[in-house]
């Protein structure tokens, strides 16, 4: 068991803690921290980063809550479609989303950034809140109504307080994602609107100001840890305070004013589909009307050879890297989950700490991690920095927390006495795992695999930092194409985005067919 725990924790130590610690040290020893903190521009960056994250979180909450109501409380045909449809934005590659909003709002700006960030995270709010909402005992609301409370009053005084833990937890995670959002801000903000995340990237890659970048990473890390702690506190309250009920009892046909909420929810879903549709249209339009020029161009290297690889090669690279990353993340995530479940009953403190530690990579910016790799991993044998293995390793780090979040709740829900029954019947620990855990959690493993694969496929932040131009993945190629002039490059980027999106949608649909409830709950 200790050996099994060492695997994910060791990976976390080498490929996360060490690089991030090196960044922190660089920030302090390079004299960067003092200079950066004294700079007024830094505080403008901080204010803008937090401000846009707060605004995006608010928009995501406002849009997500009606959808959560629809998913949790309404027995209506088509909620299965809604459940899958809202998940699509969450797993879309950030560059794809950035590009989609650029095609909608060509002037970009703060509004585009906020909307794009919110667009991503509606699913997090809706699915996390719905997860709790569908289990909250409806009879407390019925009691309030019987005591004379109006429907609105019941919602504000009974339902909303019951949902607070889930809303708080979702808000913390969304805030985290928005504050460290990279691809979207880079594509939509340009030089005018910069966040800590994009500034770290610019300082490292373009200005070669490593101490300055490290100092900024440090600032960001502090914000992330604060948000994670807030989320953990909210999660704990949820686990202890609720009397939960099965889902079937709480869903019913909406009545009266509830239809208005349902209408808003459907409107949100429709709005979520707009950028996606816009993207597809743009990929098909050429100078002379509709055409497939962008798709044909994928065979080449772009306008005047903007790329070192063809679009097709990039796609193959993406598939290869994402496969490696997924396998690694699945191994690490499943082992970590098994360890957490096995230790869970005896040592709750330790498990809680490990659980939170394993979630850290979810929040710490991928750019920080990628940057950390560049300054540490040359110490390892074989110089990983120039190795092709580096990108899958970084992607696995980003994806593993998602695997854990999907697998762990399912393993936790298996009654331990079922395993003990198998053991007393003569099953060795390994056999118990094969005969009990795998059959019962199998679908969630499959779903986690698919989900991890999709996220790895679209990973942009760390990959763009680490990948070499001749082995670029599709999202990196898209990012590069839109930063180069030439109409053909734009068309090619839209076409690549559409392909990436189609693969994503297909995999998400597949996951939803597996009917695993806990996808994307935090």
């Amino acid at each position, binding site marked *: 068991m200790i050996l099994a725990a060492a695997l994910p924790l060791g990976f976390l130590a080498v490929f996360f803690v060490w690089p991030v610690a090196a960044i922190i040290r660089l920030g302090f020893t390079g004299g960067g921290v003092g200079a950066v903190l004294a700079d007024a521009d830094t505080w403008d960056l901080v204010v803008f980063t937090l401000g846009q994250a707060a605004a995006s979180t608010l928009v995501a909450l406002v849009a997500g809550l009606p959808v959560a109501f629809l998913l949790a409380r309404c027995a209506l045909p088509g909620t299965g479609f809604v459940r899958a449809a809202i998940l699509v934005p969450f797993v879309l590659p950030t560059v794809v989303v950035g590009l989609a909003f650029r095609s909608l709002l060509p002037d970009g700006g703060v509004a585009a950034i906020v909307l794009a960030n919110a667009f991503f995270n509606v699913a997090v709010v809706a699915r996390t809140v719905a997860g709790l909402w569908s289990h909250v005992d409806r009879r407390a609301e019925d009691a309030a109504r019987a005591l004379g409370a109006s429907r609105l009053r019941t919602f504000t005084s009974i339902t909303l307080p019951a949902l607070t833990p889930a809303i708080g937890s979702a808000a913390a995670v969304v805030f985290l994602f928005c504050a460290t959002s990279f691809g979207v801000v880079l594509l939509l903000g340009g030089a005018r609107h910069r966040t800590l995340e994009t500034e770290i990237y610019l300082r490292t890659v373009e200005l070669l100001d490593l101490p300055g970048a490290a100092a900024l990473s440090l600032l960001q890390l502090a914000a992330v840890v604060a948000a994670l702690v807030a989320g953990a506190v909210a999660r704990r309250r949820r686990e202890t305070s609720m009397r939960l009920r099965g889902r079937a009892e709480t869903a019913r046909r909406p009545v009266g004013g509830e239809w208005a909420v349902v209408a808003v929810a459907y409107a949100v879903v429709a709005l979520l589909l707009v950028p996606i549709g816009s993207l597809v249209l743009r990929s098909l339009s050429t100078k002379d009307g509709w055409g497939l020029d962008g798709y044909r161009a994928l065979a080449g290297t772009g306008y005047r050879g903007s790329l070192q690889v063809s679009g097709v090669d990039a796609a193959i690279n993406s598939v290869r890297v994402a496969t490696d990353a997924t396998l690694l993340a699945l191994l690490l995530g499943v082992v970590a989950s098994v360890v957490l479940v096995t230790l869970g009953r005896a040592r709750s403190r330790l498990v809680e700490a490990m659980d939170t530690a394993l979630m850290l990579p979810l929040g710490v910016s991928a750019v920080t991690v990628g940057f950390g790799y560049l300054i540490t991993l040359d110490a390892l044998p074989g110089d990983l920095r120039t190795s092709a293995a580096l990108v899958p390793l970084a992607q696995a780090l980003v994806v593993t927390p998602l695997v854990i979040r999907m697998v762990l709740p399912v393993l936790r829900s298996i009654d331990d006495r079922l395993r003990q*029954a198998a053991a*007393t*019947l003569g*099953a060795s620990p390994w056999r118990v795992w094969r005969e009990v855990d795998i059959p019962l959690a199998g679908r969630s493993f499959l779903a986690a695999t698919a989900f991890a694969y999709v996220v790895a496929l679209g990973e942009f932040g760390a990959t763009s930092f680490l990948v070499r131009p001749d082995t670029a993945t599709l999202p990196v190629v898209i990012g590069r194409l839109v930063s180069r002039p030439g109409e053909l490059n734009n068309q090619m980027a839209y076409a690549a985005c559409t392909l990436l999106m189609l693969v994503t949608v297909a995999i998400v649909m597949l996951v939803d067919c597996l009917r695993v409830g806990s996808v994307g709950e935090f």
Partner: protein
Amino acid sequence: MLRVEEITVRYGALTAVSDVDIEVADGEVVALLGPSGCGKSTLLRAVAGLERPAAGVVRWDGVDLGRTPVHRRGFGLVFQDGQLFPHRDVAGNVAFGLRMRGVAKGERVARVGELLEMVGLAGYGARRVTELSGGEQQRVALARALAPRPRLLLLDEPLSALDRALRENLALDLSRVLRSAGTTALLVTHDHDEAFTLADRVAVMRGGRISQVGRPDEVWRRPVDEETARFLGCGIVVDAEVTAGRVTCEFGAVGLPWAPDGDVRLGLRPTGLRVGGGPVEGTVTARVHRRDHVRLVVDTGTRVVDAVAGVAGAPEVGAAVRLALDPDGLAILG
């Protein structure tokens, strides 16, 4: 033969089982009887190998099992709520232990059929376990545990989750199955009836220790101390004197041939006082219908006592009654 020597189990600072010795001979059924939280289930889990004892040894035929993991002990375990594998049908559940031992398919099918027959579920093999009633699930759990012919069967409150009528039926069935298979078994329960129906010997547990071990009738008649007596249903304990098989106390006198002579402490269960022509007078303050008798609360002026009366002609609340001792409801302490 199972031999538990000076076992202690701790959860952090809490000592759940403290220095317990117990033996189960081949073919014998022993019940661990005690209130909830007395450590009886923990002791059972330590025997199964699911808890690591802080001290002490579990031996089978003299061999220390300390280093034998759960799956190699060959002990079957039945939980309170079945814990059937939801992804397997009834036959798949019963066959599980046989598969783990590599029993050939033909033999497996035959054994599963034999066991389902034994627990009264012949023909249920292809059913989904989620479709079964609670009682049927417990029967499947029993068949599953017995299928690989365990050296020892451990039963953890096997009937507690069932409703009363079902529990009594299943207790009789379980008793028949255990005897016919000659099973060696250790049973945990908080229910006296269950313990006395099933067990050859009863060990009464309290606060992590065993306070008394003996044949059911011994334990029932001669609880070792006042607390054990109270747990076994004696609501009142009074001073009494026995001379030549006749016990005398404040409620009168009655023949008790098995009682030793001398000054004793006498425990009275509600059935120990019956409405009839005794020396004690009192007023009925409450009455409750049970299935085959009426329970009364009677105020004698000096004490408030429990008593019983026949269903026909039971006195109303407020009626004056006379109470007499009934030897079936008496216990002598010590």
